[in-house]
């Protein structure tokens, strides 16, 4: 397996695509064309945005944790469009972060090609090819949002524009009356981006190691000793290619989406080696739970088990549907999805793959400019009788976002949050937004509070609760 394909290949592909599109374009109708309703020429637009955010932990309780962070991100894009004929979009992302620790520090910079795609449009269809982000579903979150992998570098607190990672993809959409049929092909598997071993958001056992050992040593050793088996971020192996189909019907007062997707899980699930599984069972026989064993592992023990686990893309099929209906003051969404095989862990930390089902009821009130809100209730079930690690077989989760304008001074109050009703864990993130008089410049200050029992996902990370200040500039 190799890492991501060369960016040059994508650029060459887009260039070829443009040449094809320009040669084969059909005339289209442009009401503001230079000669009445005749088509106008290509137009180029460009823009971007910059984030600069400072985080400060609320509690200094872990040796070596990042008490302060300064994270900066930028996105620059260019798009050339001839209306109704073709478009080419190129964008690049850059990230510069200063992550000081009590012992040592870390500064990192990386830049990457973000989206690079071309689109041709015909009377009844369009084709979009290249590296892109495409989100199925009509709300956030949506159970149908299965195409692009996510970015969990900062758990669930990544900026909206960066929550999904662009991937190579081809989409062909046919339009007929009030119907759309979209076929998607994803040739190369790309995993979700997870927190690095040096991160405060890393799995709990690794965070315990961070507290006990020298951070650079842990980072280096973990990457060397277990990462070769751990990290399968990308592969060009066509055996892991993915494909999907979407049918949409726009009715009077309601919209229907039906999807099918044949792909691989975006969230990597590690499969522990036989030696390590045997060790966990032995410790369990002595009365220590797998979680306790994991949290007490010394650095040398991890090295001794190298590789501790292996990981590879795991195929699954998904079938889902969504209905959106406009009501008097809100839009209601009902979604359901069935997954052929979903990876999860038994309480003994054995990987199992079982059918999964989920339903979502969502309510969005987005047409006001003073008070907007969205609430989603999700019920999920895993078809197994096993006791599971850190989650229940049945889960009920509530997620919400609310934004209210405060007076006429450019201030907004925003609150986001999530609560797992079964596990009793969740997070809430209230913040204050100030739209400055400078066009495109916004300042925001808030806090992200995580809470719950220690053996739950949010409870285990509760000592990462933090306050933050952020500037956002769009141009």
């Amino acid at each position: 397996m190799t890492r991501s394909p060369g960016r040059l290949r994508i650029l060459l592909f887009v260039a070829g695509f443009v040449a094809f599109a320009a040669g084969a374009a059909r005339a289209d109708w442009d009401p503001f064309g230079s000669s009445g309703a005749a088509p106008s020429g290509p137009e180029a637009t460009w823009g971007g945005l910059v984030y600069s955010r400072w985080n400060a932990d609320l509690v200094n309780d872990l040796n070596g944790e990042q008490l302060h962070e300064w994270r900066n991100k930028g996105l620059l894009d260019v798009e050339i469009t001839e209306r109704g004929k073709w478009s080419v979009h190129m964008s690049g992302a850059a990230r510069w972060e200063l992550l000081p620790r009590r012992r040592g520090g870390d500064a990192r910079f990386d830049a990457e090609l973000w989206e690079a795609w071309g689109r041709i449009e015909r009377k009844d269809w369009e084709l979009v090819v290249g590296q892109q982000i495409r989100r199925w579903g009509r709300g956030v979150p949506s159970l149908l949002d299965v195409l692009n992998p996510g970015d969990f570098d900062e758990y669930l607190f990544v900026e909206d524009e960066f929550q999904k990672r662009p991937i190579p993809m081809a989409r062909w959409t046919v339009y007929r009356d009030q119907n759309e049929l979209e076929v998607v092909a994803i040739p190369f598997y790309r995993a979700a981006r997870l927190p690095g071993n040096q991160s405060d958001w890393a799995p709990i056992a690794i965070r315990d190691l961070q507290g006990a050992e020298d951070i650079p040593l842990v980072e280096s050793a973990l990457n060397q000793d277990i990462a070769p088996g751990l990290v399968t971020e990308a592969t060009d192996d066509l055996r892991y290619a993915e494909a999907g189909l979407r049918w949409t019907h726009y009715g009077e007062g309601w919209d229907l989406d039906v999807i099918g997707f044949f792909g691989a899980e975006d969230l990597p699930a590690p499969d522990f080696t036989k030696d390590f599984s045997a060790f966990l069972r032995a410790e369990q026989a002595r009365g220590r739970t797998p979680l306790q064993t994991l949290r007490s592992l010394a650095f040398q023990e991890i090295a001794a088990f190298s590789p501790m686990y292996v990981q590879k893309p795991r195929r699954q099929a998904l079938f889902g549907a969504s209905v959106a209906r406009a009501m008097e003051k809100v839009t209601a969404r009902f979604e359901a999805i069935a997954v052929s095989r979903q990876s999860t862990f038994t309480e003994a930390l054995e990987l199992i793959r079982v059918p999964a089902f989920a339903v979502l009821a969502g309510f969005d009130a987005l047409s006001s400019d003073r008070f907007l809100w969205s609430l989603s209730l999700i019920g999920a079930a895993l078809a197994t009788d096993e006791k599971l690690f850190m989650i229940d077989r049945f889960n009920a989760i509530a997620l919400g976002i609310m934004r209210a304008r405060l007076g006429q001074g450019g201030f907004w109050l925003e609150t986001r949050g999530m609560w797992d009703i079964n596990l009793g864990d969740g997070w809430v993130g209230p913040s204050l937004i100030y739209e400055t008089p400078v066009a495109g410049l916004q300042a925001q200050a808030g806090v992200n509070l995580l809470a719950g029992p220690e053996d739950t996902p949010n409870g285990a990370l509760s000592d990462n609760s933090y306050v933050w200040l952020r500037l956002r500039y769009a141009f």
Partner: protein
Amino acid sequence: MRRAGKLLLAVTLFLPLPAIAGPTAQDIVERVAAQPAPESSAIRVKMVLLGQRGGRETRQERTVEMFAARTPEGARSLLRFVEPRDVAGVSLLVVENPGGANDQWLYMPALKQEPRRISGGQKNASFLGTDFTFADLEGRAPGQWTHQLLREEAVDGHPAWVIESKPKNPADAPYVKTVQWVRQDNYVPVRIEFYDGRGLLKILTAEDLAQVDGYWVARRTKMENVRKKHATILEIIEQKNNLQFPPDFFSTRRMKQG
């Protein structure tokens, strides 16, 4: 007035008709409402939002394209932001269903999703951050209001009728009354005052009147919220009337095409 016209018809006025001696308030208002309007239009507008913050004036500019047409199936309208960059591509599609509620979709390119269906029930909510509400843009059926001719007076040198209108069913109306100045030479309302239970709320003024393709057009329309000390100015950059839109123009697909 058709819903699809909405914002478009707020800035597009009507054909002149010969003045009638001694008309009643009801006659005048019905004449205004019955003016022929373009079957379809495409308008590019500069939208200026004026406000005050900390004692200083603020100014935001946006460029918006508005398309509207009447079809046998009902009125259609598509509004799309062109500038500034951070809202470019945001679109609103409204499809009128005769006898039923309108279908409305909002498309936000940054979400990378399909257009979202939105509810149309918040008639008193601001229309995309402007001083117009959705109710302002729908117009009013004259029969649902009672009208009284208050007086005649000149507006910018043009004789006008001053008419007060009150809703017959106040519970369903966005305002307790309006007062409008209708020019006698062309039946164009050039000033409308909107009152709620607390008094004067907003003032609409239509300026720089001109005829385009035989239709009266206000090239500059201002809606001022006197309580919030905030105003929205719409200036027409370009307008084309009675266009033949392609059959699929008012569609969710078109919203995505920029």
